[in-house]
């Protein structure tokens, strides 16, 4: 909402200066967004200094000037003036400036083969005098330090721009703003003398509000003004309209706009001669259409509130009028409308038609239903003053009586909510100033809410009014208690924070990407999950909720590779979605690593990242978060975006149904489809919601400390075994032989090749054997040795390599 202080003062007697008014507005909840002059076309002319001038290479009379235009900028300007000399202070017009004398817009142009950025001005060009001999010579004394500043002072009045919250419909007019300021002690609300008006004749265009279901109009006031001469508005009115940043149109239209801003009372003027018999306010029928004043044709749905006549729709009530009955400069007789439309009806109609107008904005928030007469009289009087004519009696059709809201209020509530006291006397004064009718009965205030405050419906609203006017600075600052009754984070949240930092500590950069993604890329990672479409996406490549984080990670990996960054490690922790209902989401960590390890390294041999890098990072993180690696079960059942032969799934134990993590190389088809250019790309993901909560806290998990000081023996074995036989099983077979003696099994070599059949591999492992009870003698060791060999051979079909 924009207005000038002068306009405000038409409603407010105040001794406050502008800045005090601005501060007051913000303090009572009418936030001032800006307070500055509307831009002027003269703003562009700035003080400049010629820092160098030389002869134009192709023209004797022209000079080529380097001009300092402030803020560290210099431009080249071609100038024909004889006095364009080094160190001259003058006035510069940049490209785009409108030159007052010629009324032409300056463009960047080539003058005799040299480009000139803007122009240095003479007094005559700026219409300051007839002096056209040479450019303006500003006194260097006065203008040193002024370079870059505006040459002309902006004479436009300063305009206040306040943002009005949706509850404050009443402050969409100057009168309402003045009332609020007056209540807050900024002055006195001016009482206007009722405009003296001489009615002649009655309003003889019949108005009927149809008895439709959910009729959007509850009152329709009107009067006829006959025999007018519609003209341009007088200067005072034009200036007001201009100060709002709007364009004056004609006296009739400008007056209705003026009254709307002044009183928050939207009006509409019809050319009375274009109305086909009477006015009917009714619900629209599906398919009806009309051309609105924005020159667009609208086809209506059912049950929109329309103003119509016998020939059809004239306009949408409270939203926009139609061209058929619009006023023009030659309009002789007008019908002025001042009506009340229901916010709900306005809102639903404008939403369907996607229509935004000043009237709609106001009616939607709630117009004072008792302002119909005031608006008609104020506008009719003004139109008569400017355009002449005679005003008919007012005609008010109503189908619903307005009742003010009544509220019982006690100051106890105020103190309980705000924490401080306010006296009865002050309370009464504030409420009276805001327009309430106040009756006090012992401790209870019986309040009648003013008709212009549809937002006030219950006692808490009264608390807000009083504290708002008293000032929020009256509220004390209570020191917070440092008592904690509940743990800050629950188990899942701790897991989140721990794993986030655990993965990052392995060299991955955390990123945050949108929760939505491109359906085309998402398909590659979706598996059998539902696709969750966004009905109104921000763009067609962000049109589904992500089923996996990888679609985004890979997209940004590619962007970074395109920036010539190599060897990238990225991860994100966040939601992925399995359905469109609340809760159909889970928390996942997805990570990727691309390129080489030890690229261009003088001491280490460079190699591609591989599946066992991914496995190391994911396993280490799982161990760090508290899982027991000994219980892990790993298989190669992975989604199809993984490389089928170089990837795995980790289960918390062998009876888990769902994996807690996946790792591996990404499927080469995906790299190819997304055109990702890197030597190697590995990924892993951890499903946080699949990690089971420990039954005990850490303090109870620590087992008794047991160690053995008896002789420890290492025995090495090499087994030749089927290529497909998993090492995990081999280790398990050996570990289970005697859990008390076999402390560790370590794989130290894997061999496939010449000396071994093609479908076999050789696995070399070292077994640590140690007893808790005694030193093992040679015979004991020999026994366990033989047991390992025979058990492995019988259970796995392996052969010990001799």
């Amino acid at each position: 909402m924009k207005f000038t202080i002068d306009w405000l003062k038409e409603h407010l007697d105040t001794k406050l200066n502008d800045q005090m008014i601005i501060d007051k507005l913000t303090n009572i909840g009418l936030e001032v967004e800006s307070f500055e002059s509307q831009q002027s076309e003269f703003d562009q002319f700035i003080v400049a200094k010629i820092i160098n001038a030389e002869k134009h290479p192709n023209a004797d009379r022209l000079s080529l000037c380097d001009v300092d235009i402030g803020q560290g900028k210099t431009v080249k300007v071609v100038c024909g003036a004889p006095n364009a000399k080094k160190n001259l202070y003058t006035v510069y017009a940049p490209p785009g400036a409108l030159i007052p004398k010629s009324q032409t817009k300056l463009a960047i142009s080539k003058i005799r083969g040299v480009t000139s950025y803007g122009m240095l001005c003479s007094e005559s060009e700026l219409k300051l005098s007839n002096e056209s001999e040479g450019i303006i010579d500003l006194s260097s004394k006065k203008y040193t330090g002024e370079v870059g500043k505006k040459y002309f002072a902006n004479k436009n009045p300063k305009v206040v721009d306040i943002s009005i919250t949706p509850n404050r419909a009443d402050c969409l007019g100057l009168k309402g703003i003045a009332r609020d300021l007056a209540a807050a002690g900024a002055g006195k609300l001016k009482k206007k003398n009722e405009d003296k008006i001489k009615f002649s004749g009655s309003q003889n265009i019949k108005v009927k509000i149809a008895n439709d279901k959910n009729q959007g109009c509850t009152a329709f006031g009107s009067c006829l003004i006959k025999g007018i001469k519609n003209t341009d508005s007088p200067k005072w009115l034009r200036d007001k309209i201009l100060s709002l940043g709007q364009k004056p149109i004609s006296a009739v239209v400008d007056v209705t706009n003026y009254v709307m801003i002044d009183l928050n009372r939207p009006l509409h003027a019809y050319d009375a001669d274009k109305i086909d018999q009477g006015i009917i306010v009714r619900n629209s029928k599906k398919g009806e259409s009309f051309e609105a004043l924005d020159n667009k044709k609208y086809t209506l749905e059912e049950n929109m509130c329309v103003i119509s006549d016998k020939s059809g729709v004239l306009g949408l009530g409270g939203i926009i009028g139609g061209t058929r009955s619009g006023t023009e400069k030659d309009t002789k007789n007008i019908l002025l409308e001042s009506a009340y439309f229901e916010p709900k009806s306005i809102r639903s109609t404008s939403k369907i038609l996607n229509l935004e107008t000043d009237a709609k904005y106001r009616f939607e928030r709630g117009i004072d239903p008792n302002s119909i007469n005031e608006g008609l009289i104020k506008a009719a009087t003004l139109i008569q003053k400017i355009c002449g004519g005679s005003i008919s009696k007012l005609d008010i059709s109503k189908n619903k009586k307005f009742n003010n809201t009544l509220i019982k209020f006690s100051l106890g509530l105020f103190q309980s909510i705000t924490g401080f006291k306010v006296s009865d006397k002050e309370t009464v004064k504030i409420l009276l100033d805001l327009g309430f009718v106040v009756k006090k009965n012992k401790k209870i205030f019986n309040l009648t809410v003013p008709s212009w405050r549809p937002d006030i419906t219950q006692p808490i609203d009264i608390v807000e009014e009083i504290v708002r006017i008293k000032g929020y600075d009256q509220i004390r600052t209570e020191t917070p208690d440092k008592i904690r009754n509940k743990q800050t984070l629950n188990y899942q949240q701790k897991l989140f924070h721990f794993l986030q930092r655990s993965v990052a500590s392995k060299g991955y950069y955390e990123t945050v990407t949108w929760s939505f993604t491109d359906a085309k890329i998402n398909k590659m990672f979706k598996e059998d999950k539902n696709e969750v479409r966004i009905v109104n996406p921000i763009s067609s490549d962000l049109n589904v909720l992500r089923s996996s984080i990888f679609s985004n990670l890979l997209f940004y990996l590619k962007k970074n590779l395109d920036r010539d960054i190599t060897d990238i490690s990225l991860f994100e922790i966040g939601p992925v979605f399995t359905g469109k209902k609340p809760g159909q989401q889970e928390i996942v960590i997805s990570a990727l690593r691309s390129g080489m390890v030890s690229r261009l390294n003088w001491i280490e041999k460079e190699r591609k990242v591989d599946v066992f890098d991914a496995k190391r990072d994911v396993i280490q993180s799982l161990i760090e978060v508290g899982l027991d690696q000994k219980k892990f079960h790993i298989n190669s059942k992975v989604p199809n975006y993984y490389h089928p032969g170089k990837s795995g799934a980790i289960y918390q134990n062998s009876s888990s149904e769902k994996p807690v993590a996946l790792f591996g190389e990404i499927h080469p088809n995906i790299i190819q489809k997304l055109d990702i250019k890197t030597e190697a790309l590995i990924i892993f993901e951890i499903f946080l919601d699949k990690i089971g909560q420990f039954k005990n806290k850490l303090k109870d998990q620590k087992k008794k400390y047991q160690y053995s000081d008896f002789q420890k023996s290492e025995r090495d074995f090499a087994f030749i075994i089927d290529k497909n036989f998993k090492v995990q099983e081999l280790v398990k077979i050996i570990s289970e032989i005697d859990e008390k003696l076999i402390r560790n099994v370590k794989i130290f070599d894997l061999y496939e090749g010449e000396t071994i059949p093609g479908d076999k591999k050789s696995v070399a492992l070292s077994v640590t054997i140690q007893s808790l009870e005694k030193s093992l003698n040679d015979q004991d060791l020999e026994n366990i040795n033989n047991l390992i060999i025979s058990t492995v051979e019988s259970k796995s079909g392996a052969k010990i390599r001799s």
Partner: protein
Amino acid sequence: MSDIIKIKKEYLSKLNNDLDLNSINQIKSELFGKSGKITNEFKKIGSISANERKKFAYDLNLAKDELQNIIENKLKDNEIKEINLKLQNEQVDVTLPERSFNRGRIHPVSQVIDEISSIFSEIGFSVAEGPDVENEYNNFTALNTPDNHPARDMHDTFYLDDKKEFLLRTHTSPVQIRTMQGGKPPFKIIAPGRTYRSDSDQTHAPMFHQVEGLHIDKNINMGHLKGCLNYFIKEFFEVDKIQMRFRPSHFPFTEPSAEVDIGYKLKNGKIIIGEGDKWLEILGCGMVHPNVLKNVKVDPLKYQGYAFGMGIDRLAMLKYGINDLRAFFETDYRWLNHFGFDPLDVPSNYRGLSR
């Protein structure tokens, strides 16, 4: 002169020379080898008469110890000499780079969420969360924002179905609803998380982060709200003094409502929080509207309290001098490296919020 003294004298003088390792070992075996001179002397002990034997043995041991000592010392000296000699050839250029290591990064949004959680933890808040996908009721209606309310227009909502029943939450406030529906007062929670609005330009991202606060108990008033926020802002920006301004505003789910500005000044183009004559809006808050309490079956005559919501990304920008919101979500590796945090930098109360 006895043999012992003779041997001793002879070898002491031999050992007095500068000897190399071989010569020392040669001497060692001449004396202590299987048929070394000292060894042989020891063999004689048995054949010596009883009354002389004691003295003989004493002298012999003395001589043995002395010679042995000298030989051992000579050997050690020699080893050290050899090590020193070797060291001259064992020099590396330590200014060559170390073996490679990878240092990860925590995103500023995550870091700031941890900072916020740490601060509110100190004054008794716990962390609550809710789903990103919400139903229309929790996101709007329960929060006293019925369908025909113009405040709905202020949220450009992403919808997941044509009936507009399911949507991406436009704020973290539905977590208030879920928390209160699922429990009994008192409530004291913060709820950080992702929020979404279909708005995208230089200063708006379609996804951003908010943190919600809710404190409901029997006697919680606006003074507590002010105190809580004042504490938070001071702790978060790690300054001693903070200028804060509460301005009346409007949110459907709070009444009275306020927006909070903090004072700042510009110094060399950088925002300095805490002093100065300029105001920066950083959050919205208010007393939870009785209609909201009724909607979640909390008796507004018995319980009341405050709620607040603020933009996490914006807090991060202000604190760490980041001036482009969009960059938060663009995964530019260089940006992540520059503005990211070391994973070991866990904000905590005892160690301090940040380094």
